[in-house]
Structure formats: structure tokens, C-alpha cells
């Protein structure tokens, strides 16, 4: 199934809800609105056999957060991207559809503060338990001051 | 004068000093053979060829801090290492190396001393279990429980295998058994099956791979010795070394026809035969991977026990033909 055929089928099937662009061989980027996420992913999984989720990347674009779901099939690499406003970053969870997605959803929750509704277990993950609430490290406005390195012993 | 001779007998020649030296030497020999089998060097830098490595380990541990967990049962916790060493050293006295002459048997050679030897050799396992139980550390309770479970596995085949040559020789005295097989060396071939079963059972008694589950470091940290440190750990390691020497001495007496040729020549054959058996134990240790506790018990009852019974059957048949 070459890229062109897949684009045609996707266009036919999902039509208005997605914009497709194909920057390179075997690379497809599908842009969809946030509410359409779960129906589109279900459709992809049932009709197009897209079952393998590589990872979910979060991006801080200033006014909005962008979330990219990197799916892959034996022939192509589909990347579904949605945007959520910065004030109310909420997105639906796709773990019921693809069990392996729980990891990555918890990461964007931790790192960007995006609330994933319906996540089976939303406990904090990577950050230490005493991490101050409301601090999301991968946001562009989060800065850390690098401590000055003090080398013990001897003249500096 | 007799008191001095006995003291010397107990403390120097076949007693603690000799067993300490020969125990550490056999540990060095075991580690060197195990390393060479794995194409490694083994201990090389402490003393000539690394000979003093076990001694160095022993004295290093003696100098280390000796921690006693406060939840532990202090009395038992402190007494056990010494008790374990005493039990194993006394069983060392019974070996027919130093009381070989049938005519004037010393006080350590009497009818039935093979039974006492086997009993004394199974006591250290009990000491290990008590050490694990008294140190109230969870890792060691697991290790202790595993020690007992394995005990039920390999003990019966070991006794059967070791006692069948005694049945053929028609006597319970080690010196007489050795003498019997020295006169009829052909009969040794009858016991080859028993020798193999006893080797594997002794490997399990000494808790060496593939049976070293009680202190498998990747699963339960230190196993029975988790809480022990300093002098007590040094004594326990010494006990295991001496137990290896005594067990291989017992197997040599019963299966390889004892130690003929008076004091000096007998001692030489004692050294050669025990080193040969320790070589076989190292070989088993290098050959196999550690198996799970349930596999040990099923292996013991499904393989070792039937073979031991078969060996006993063969012995009785041969005894019938002889008489």
C-alpha cells in the first residue's frame, strides 16, 4: 500500500475531519481537531489496522499545546496531531483503544500539565513525589537555574 | 602426659589447626580450578599463586566490625558459628587417616563411627537454619526455609549411597570398610553409581551451584548469612570449608578405598583423593546453572533417590553372590 493509495483511502474515509501532509516517503501527518481524536483513532484501528502506537509527543507552541500520536504500520508511519488551548488543556484518553498508550499519556500529563480524561491511572510518574504541583518542566516558560559548580579541595 | 597428647591431638594435628590450614588450602584449590575451568586466572596476587587468598579473606573478616541485629536472639546468634565449627571439626576427627591401624584403634575409631560421621555432617545444616532463623532478617528466613526444604531432598539419597558400601563390607567402622576394599579393589566398581549419587548429594549439602539457592545473591541477597558479619561470618565460611574437606574425606574412605600405607603414605593418599573429589565438586559447580527450589526437591526424589535404592539393591545382590 503506497503512500498515495493510503492518502486517497484516508481522504475518502475520514474526509472533512483530517488534513493530510506527506513530508517524506513513508511519513504521513494527519491534523485533526481534539474532539475527533477518539473516533478517528478507532476508525484507524478498525479499518486501517493501525494498532502500534510508538509514542506521544507533546509540544508547547505558546498559545496552544500540540500533541502528536505516532502510530506505525508495517508500511507507513502515521502521526496524528491535535492542538489543545493552553488555558484548558484537556484531551480524551486513547488507552481503552490501545492499552500500550498509558505510558505516554502519563508523561504528557506530567511534563506539560495536559489533563487526559478517562486515563485509567493518572498518578504522577517520572517526577519525584515531592515535586511542587503546577510545575511542568517541558513547558517553554519553565526555567531552571543551573547551580554554580563548586569543586571541593585545592585552589580553583 | 596423655592429657597433653590429647590436647595436641585435638588442637594441632587432626584438630583445628590442621583443618584450618587444609580447609583454606582446599578452598583455594576449589577457586583456582573453578577459575581455570572458566578460562580465568583465579586468585593470584596473595602469596605464591594466590595460596593465601582464603587466609587473607579469613583474617580480613576477623578484623571487620561484628554487627548483631538488635531484634536477633542474641544468645543463639552469637553461639551458632562456634558450635557449627565445633561440630564439623569433631566429625573431622573420625576420618580413618589418623587412626588407621585396625589392631590398636585410637579412641576415635569404633564400630558405628560412620553413623556418627553422617549425623555430625548433617548438623551444620541445622546450624545454618538456626542461624537464619535467629537473625530475624526476612531474606535469611527465606534462606533458612530453603536450607531445610533442600535437606529433605538430598539427605535420604546421601545416606543410602554412603551406607551401601558399608553394607557390602559388612561393618560400620570406617577403618574396617577401608581395609575391606583395600583387599578387594574390584568390589569398588560395584559402588560407582553410589559414588555419583553421593557426589551430587554432597554438592547439595555444601550448597554449591546448582543447589546454592539458599544464598542466591541475585534473588535473596545473602540468604542465611545476610545478617552475619565480621568474626561470625569468618567462622561460618571456615565451617563450610572444613565441611567440604570432611565430606570429601568421607567419600574417599567409602568409595575410593580409604587411605592405605601407614601414617605418612596414608596421609599422602588422603590429600590426593580429597583433592580429586574436590575437583569433581568444582566441575559440577562450573557445569550447571542454579535451579529453582521446587526443581531441586523434585530432582532429588525423582532421580537421586531411585538411583540410591538401585545402588543398595546391587550391593545386596553382590553380597549374596560373595557369601
Amino acid at each position, binding site marked *: 500500500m503506497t503512500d498515495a493509495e493510503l492518502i486517497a483511502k484516508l481522504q475518502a474515509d475520514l474526509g472533512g475531519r483530517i488534513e493530510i501532509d506527506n513530508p517524506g516517503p513513508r511519513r504521513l501527518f494527519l491534523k485533526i481537531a481534539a474532539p475527533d481524536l477518539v473516533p478517528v483513532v478507532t476508525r484507524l484501528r478498525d479499518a486501517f489496522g493501525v494498532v502500534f502506537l510508538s509514542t506521544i509527543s507533546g509540544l508547547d507552541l505558546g498559545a496552544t499545546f500540540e500533541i502528536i500520536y505516532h502510530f506505525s504500520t508495517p508500511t507507513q508511519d502515521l502521526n496524528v496531531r491535535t492542538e489543545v488551548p493552553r488555558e484548558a488543556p484537556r484531551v480524551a484518553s486513547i488507552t481503552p483503544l490501545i492499552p500500550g498508550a498509558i505510558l505516554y499519556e502519563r508523561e504528557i500529563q506530567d511534563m506539560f500539565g495536559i489533563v487526559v480524561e478517562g486515563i485509567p491511572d493518572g498518578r504522577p510518574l517520572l517526577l519525584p513525589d515531592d515535586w511542587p504541583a503546577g510545575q511542568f518542566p517541558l513547558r517553554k516558560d519553565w526555567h531552571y537555574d543551573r547551580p554554580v559548580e563548586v569543586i571541593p579541595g585545592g585552589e580553583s | 602426659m596423655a592429657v597433653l597428647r590429647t590436647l595436641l591431638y585435638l588442637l594441632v594435628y587432626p584438630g583445628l589447626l590442621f583443618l584450618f590450614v587444609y580447609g583454606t588450602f582446599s578452598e583455594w584449590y576449589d577457586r583456582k580450578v573453578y577459575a*581455570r575451568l*572458566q578460562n*580465568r*586466572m583465579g586468585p593470584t596476587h596473595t602469596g605464591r599463586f594466590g595460596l593465601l587468598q582464603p587466609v587473607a579473606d579469613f583474617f580480613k573478616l576477623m578484623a571487620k566490625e561484628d554487627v548483631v541485629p538488635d531484634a536477633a536472639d542474641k544468645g543463639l546468634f552469637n553461639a551458632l558459628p562456634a558450635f557449627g565449627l565445633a561440630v564439623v571439626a569433631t566429625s573431622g576427627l573420625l576420618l580413618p587417616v589418623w587412626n588407621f591401624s585396625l589392631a590398636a584403634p585410637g579412641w576415635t575409631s569404633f564400630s558405628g563411627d560412620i553413623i556418627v560421621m553422617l549425623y555430625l555432617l548433617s548438623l551444620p545444616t541445622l546450624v545454618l537454619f538456626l542461624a537464619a532463623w535467629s537473625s530475624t532478617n526476612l531474606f535469611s528466613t527465606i534462606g533458612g526455609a530453603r536450607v531445610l526444604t533442600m535437606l529433605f531432598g538430598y539427605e535420604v539419597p546421601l545416606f543410602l549411597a554412603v551406607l551401601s558400601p558399608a553394607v557390602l563390607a559388612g561393618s560400620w567402622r570406617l577403618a574396617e570398610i577401608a581395609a575391606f576394599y583395600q583387599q578387594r579393589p574390584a568390589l569398588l566398581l560395584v559402588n560407582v553409581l553410589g559414588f555419583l549419587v553421593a557426589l551430587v548429594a554432597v554438592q547439595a549439602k555444601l550448597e554449591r551451584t546448582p543447589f546454592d539457592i539458599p544464598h542466591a545473591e541475585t534473588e535473596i541477597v545473602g540468604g542465611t548469612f545476610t545478617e552475619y558479619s565480621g568474626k561470625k561470618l569468618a567462622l561460618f565460611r571456615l565451617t563450610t570449608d572444613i565441611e567440604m574437606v570432611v565430606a570429601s574425606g568421607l567419600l574417599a574412605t567409602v568409595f575410593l578405598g580409604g587411605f592405605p600405607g601407614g601414617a605418612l603414605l596414608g596421609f599422602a593418599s588422603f590429600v590426593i583423593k580429597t583433592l580429586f573429589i574436590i575437583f569433581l565438586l568444582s566441575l559440577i559447580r562450573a557445569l550447571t546453572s542454579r535451579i529453582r527450589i521446587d526443581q531441586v526437591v523434585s530432582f532429588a526424589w525423582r532421580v537421586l533417590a531411585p538411583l540410591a535404592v538401585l545402588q543398595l539393591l546391587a550391593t545386596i545382590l553382590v553380597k549374596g553372590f560373595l557369601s
Partner: protein
Amino acid sequence: MRIAAFLPELLRHLFKKPATVDYPFKKIALPEDFRGTPYLQPELCIVCKACERDCPAEAIEITAVGEPAEKRFKMVIHNDRCIHCAQCVDVCPTTPKAMQMDSLFELAADDRHKLKKDWVYVRAVIKPKAAAPAAPAAPVAEPKA
């Protein structure tokens, strides 16, 4: 399933020479272009600070010494932070290269200051090519990104 499948291999190695090397007393030969520690040949350095800019571990520090006219510089290589990637050698524009790598890798020291090496030198003037005009190329002060 064969009993004692490993036996022939073990016995064959029993009397062979061990494969392990007695490290501190005997050492294995290093391959010829082994990446050890970077060092500077001061007379070739044109202080373009390419190495300082591209060093992933920020282990190179070049500072001016004395008044600017004299063009005296001091370079410190923090060998305790260096990750031995030889990127400074690759990015150095001089031919022959001012930054070189030796094959020293046993760097244990009880004090990190002992690992820092520094050179004080005057900036090298690029030897004019036979035809090219003799004006020394003023080092473009690359803004430290």
C-alpha cells in the same frame, strides 16, 4: 537436552592460558588512534574559539590575559569534565591541527584541580600563503551562542 553439555569446553580450557589479563601489571596495547585526552599546541592556535563553542561538555575555556593589544590568551582544558569525544580536534580550522588527542586514559586523581591543564600563549599569526596578501585574518569574535 544433553546432560553436561558444557563439559568438553570446560575441560579443554582447564590447562589453557587464562584469557584474563593481569591488568595493573600487564597492559593490553591500545589501537593507534585511540581517543585519550585533548591537548593544545599553543604555537598553532588562532583563538577562533570554535572548540570552546562546540565542546559538548564545556570543558575548554579561553580567556584573554593582559591588555588586549598584546594578544595573550590562556586556555584551560577541564579534563575532569572532558568526555573525550575529539570534537574539538575535528572542528579546529588550523592545519596542522592545534588541538590533538593523546592516548592517556588512566586519569584517576584525588583532586579534580589536578586534572585541569592550562596554557598561556600569544595568538598565532596565520602564515601568509605564497600568493595571498599578508594581512593576518582578524579572528571574527563569534558571539558565544
